[in-house]
């Protein structure tokens, strides 16, 4: 093997090792840091463990929004078949309304209340988060009049 070839071999081996190392890192990071999306029906069906972070999405149930002490807000997310109560401390997005689509990030506490760290509403009147649309379609409560945009 001449020196040039040997250098190439070293380079190729280093590259493969770096690639494998990188892949392991990336996969490890992905495994621990993905947030699953569940609809209220999924939550009821799968018994998600308390403390496991995930995203929940659906409609804000009409008449369910109430304010606690200070800036705390409570509301119920529904997909028509199941309901999950949500507690959130913070400023709600501008387009948060009863009867509209919403996505919240957080985890269930021991009493089954979803403790949200972040609440996202749709960006404008014409838009509904695609996950929420899919969840509503699955639960059979999607009306074609609603525009998913």
């Amino acid at each position, binding site marked *: 093997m001449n020196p040039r070839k040997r250098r190439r071999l070293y380079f190729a081996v280093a590259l493969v090792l770096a690639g494998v190392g990188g892949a392991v890192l990336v996969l490890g*990071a992905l495994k621990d840091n993905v947030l699953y999306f569940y609809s209220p029906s999924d939550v009821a069906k799968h018994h998600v463990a308390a403390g496991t972070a995930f995203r929940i999405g659906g409609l804000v149930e009409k008449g369910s929004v109430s304010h606690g002490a200070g800036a705390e807000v409570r509301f119920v997310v529904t997909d028509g078949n199941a309901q999950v109560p949500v507690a959130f401390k913070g400023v*709600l997005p501008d387009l948060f309304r009863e009867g509209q689509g919403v996505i919240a990030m957080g985890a269930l506490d021991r009493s089954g209340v979803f403790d949200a760290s972040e609440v996202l509403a749709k960006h404008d009147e014409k838009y509904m988060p695609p996950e929420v649309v899919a969840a509503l379609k699955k639960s059979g409560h999607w009306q074609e009049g609603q525009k998913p945009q």
Partner: protein
Amino acid sequence: MTGEIGQLALCLALALSAVMAVAGLLGARANAGQSRAVASSTAMGLLVFVALAFGSLIYAFVTSDFSIATVYQNSHTLKPLIYKITGVWGNHEGSMVLWVFVLAIYSGIMAFAQRGGERLTSAALGVQGLLAFAFLLFILFTSNPFLRLDPPPFEGLGLNPLLQDPGLAMHPPMLYVGYVGLSASFSYSAAALITGEANAAWARAARPFMLFAWIALTLGITLGSWWAYYVLGWGGFWFWDPVENAALMPWLIATALLHSALATERTGAFRSWTLLLAILGFSLSLIGTFLVRSGVLSSVHAFANDPERGVFILGMLVTAIGSALALFAWRAPQLQSGTAFDIASKETTLLLNNVLLSAAAATVFIGTLYPLLLDALTGEKISVGPPYFALTFAPLFVVLILLVPFGPRLGWRKGDWREALLVLRPALGVAAVAAVLVFAIATPHSLVAAGAFALAAWTIAAAIVDLVRRGDLRALPASAYASALAHAGLGITLMGIAGTTMWRSEGLELLKPGQTMPIAGYTLRLDGVEMVQGPNYEAERADIAVFSNGRAIAVMHPEKRDYPAEGQATTDTAIRTTGFSDLYLALGDQRDGGWVLRAYVSPLAPFIWFGGVFMALGGLASLWGRLRRRAVPLEQLAAAE
């Protein structure tokens, strides 16, 4: 009438782009002077007609011609003039016309400048013609901006209020100039593969386009991040949102490209690698366009959810990227390899820069596309959050930033690491002092903060040391200033990111008029909230008195705006900046006779964007030096080195 003119102009542009593609590619043969002349003149014609189409669309928006569907859906007579104009690209159809317009401008410049010789330019124009043809076809068949409504409505639906903002007026054009600018280096690379002229002259021809695209991307991303910071009301500057990632990936690859092209131009090294990066950079722009425009992502940027459009863009994407990569695989092995270089040399640092930046782009790519792939395969919906990026992206950048100062200090082909380190000793000292100070003074005492500031100080101080050690500052070439500015910018942005993420204070309280809340040494007093009338909105405007050490220092006015035409509300934050720290207020809901007020104090937040501006200035310095030096023959340059 304007609608018909625009429509006709688009059709003519389509025909011209087809001619340009054929003539340009034919011009790649030897002795095809006539084809080359045709390619150049059709490039100019394309520019004229696309400009005419774009101009008529702007005219329709300015005159509120609601007989055109795009105008009806995205404009309103009461909207201020500037937002009527920016509304042109605040929607899917118009933004695609802007895209093609920018593409036509680049083609026009390429045809005019004829950099790298007539043959190379002709082949590059041919590729540009193909791209323009595909995009014009896409516009005419799936996203025609000039569709008529009969009878015309009296009033338009208005523009998403989040987009009615001066920062956002400039953000999309800037980003497009960057995105599409990468098409020029893509076309030059494809041309070099076709003609076999992948030499230093080719790298020199393509470099100004790469630089310009990179500057625009840098500024576009900076503007977008700043906009998100002050408009969204969360006080964050980067969310690892797929749409942000779509802009970040081409930027990372373009940054790698700039550095590898530097080596190709000087010593002929990394020839095929530079070609590949140019292809990848624009491919990522196309993927970004697909992600953003096809509606597969939920985002403020996702205008369209028309599956037909998604399929069209996907087809275009696969064809463009596939054929470019196939061309590369076929022709690249025939390129001669560059000269050898020592392991201690500038080339090595550029190689490391490229490996790290490409790896960083790959981690972002995986994090962005993995959820889409999983959804398509299993129907499971997941999202990949910031912790993933912190674990994969951040370590790569730490290594990158550690190495950055060595690049400018090592010689081509053969350098000396030890000597470079010796020269950079003062910067090492500054970094150590910064680490100790940050650890001792700032609370909570954090090794991560100390490390981040040491890294930032290291790059900034090293950039200064590098300049000073080169001798007379007035006699230095622009390229010395370019690398110093850009590398220092990286350090400045890092300081901003570290400062805000580690030391930000947050306050959230329900205040009745007269009540106060403390935050990070300030006291905020709500003096009242009044209704005010804007041009096309009404707002609840708070009067908040800010006290520091018992002294009134400012009155701030965060607003909640309601846009009746669009039926939407937005938060208008109030930010008081000292340049070193921001006091950031967002007004929340009214409740029980009070208002929810969210306040942040973000130390060093402005540095994030200052750093971006520095990087762009570095790019400008390089571009300036490049264009001025163009008259000097290559041999003289080599002798001067």
